[in-house]
């Protein structure tokens, strides 16, 4: 059994470049970051018997038999209106009136078209 501590496996590190390690049943990841930009990144079910302890699993789907301890497990749809820098990292640009809008202020200036000011939040999915 191996214990992998304080490793960064986020984003391209495993999503594009592939796994730098070959985890075996019984292996433990401690304080590792597996987080991804978009929801639904699946860690292969062929990686069986793994334990994730104090790991960041944002937008990650761990194998079904994994043991998850004290980890952040959530799927988040990110809004590029809040984080335009993430477009360069591969996130699809959001429309101005996108699914992440939580509030809209409409401002009417004289006889012109109304101006809409949108408030956004990343969305838990």
């Amino acid at each position, binding site marked *: 059994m191996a214990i992998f501590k304080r490793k960064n496996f*986020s984003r391209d590190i495993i999503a594009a*470049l592939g796994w730098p390690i070959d985890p075996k049943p019984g292996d433990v990841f401690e304080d590792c*970051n597996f987080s991804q930009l978009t929801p639904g990144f699946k860690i292969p079910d062929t990686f069986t018997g793994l334990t994730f302890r104090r790991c960041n699993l944002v937008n990650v789907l761990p194998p079904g038999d994994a043991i998850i301890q004290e980890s*952040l497990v959530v799927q988040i749809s990110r809004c590029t209106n809040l984080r335009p*820098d993430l477009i360069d990292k591969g996130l699809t640009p959001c429309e101005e009136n996108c699914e992440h809008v939580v509030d809209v202020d409409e401002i009417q200036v004289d006889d012109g078209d109304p101006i809409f000011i949108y408030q956004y939040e990343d969305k838990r999915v």
Partner: protein
Amino acid sequence: MATYYVDPAATGTGSGADWTNAFTTLAAAIAKPVAAGDTVYARGTETLSSGIIINVGGDTTSGFIKFIGCNASGNVDGTTYKIDGNSAVTDGLILQTNAKYTWWENIEVYNCNAHGVNPGTLASWNVWYNFISRNNGNSGWNTGGTYNFWFYCRGTNNAGGYGWNNPPANNFWIGCVAANNADTGYLVVGAGGVFIESIAADNGATSLDQGFRADARGLIFGCVADNEYTGVTVNDLLYFVMRTRMTNCTEGLTFNSSGDVGVYGFNLFHNNTSDVVDNGAGTQIMRNYATADSNKYDPDSDDGYNNASNEDFNLKRNRTYNGDGSDTIGLGIGT
């Protein structure tokens, strides 16, 4: 100048007057309300159902409002008070406009869906000491005001993903670690950021990611940037990078705009693809440029942040934590 106690496992009256009758949440202590000069001791683990809002502060007459984590016996020994976002709350700590002169010592916040700590842009003159913000969905710390001080803090494993995201001008980091975040370790856009003996390691791997992003008129002294795409990026006028180790990076030190006047010297560059990259033809004043591995105290000779307890980075401190202001610190700096 009152003293209050927080223990989520307490079953007493909840008056906050002692450990037996402690408040069971930090929010309850804050709502007392605490005032300038007060101290709140906290022990155990608090699982949040909503973020903790702080809109109170100390002042220059009566001093800080202090929140200090304790061990199970109620003693201050560096044991953290744990704030668990439980994959449920957005931000763990939310500092609003009046949150000035607050002091956060021996506290850990994690598993929040957005930021571990989200200080408003007017939250200034706050001190963070041995504070850990890790495993959050966005950043460890997000923005904040000016003149905040981080001592021996850690922003690690954040997904959004900065250790520190965009605090404005004139903030200070001493002995901190930003590691394993999905993007940049320290993203500092404001002028006057000062880093002393702090570490950035193993953060995001793309060309947009950096260990330290430093803007105008600041200082990086005695720090380490290891295994980053860019170890240190200088983006604006007159930044000093001195006695810093940039190792195992694609680019060790990068100047990004034509207005840069970078002063760097007495640094070590080792095993980078490119040691110094000048993208803007700025003026650079360089002295004592070294590339030999001189980390003589690192027993595993890998220049990597692999074992925080050994001498990696020459930054191990012989620190005696007393928690009463009488800490002794041996800096343990190597060559």
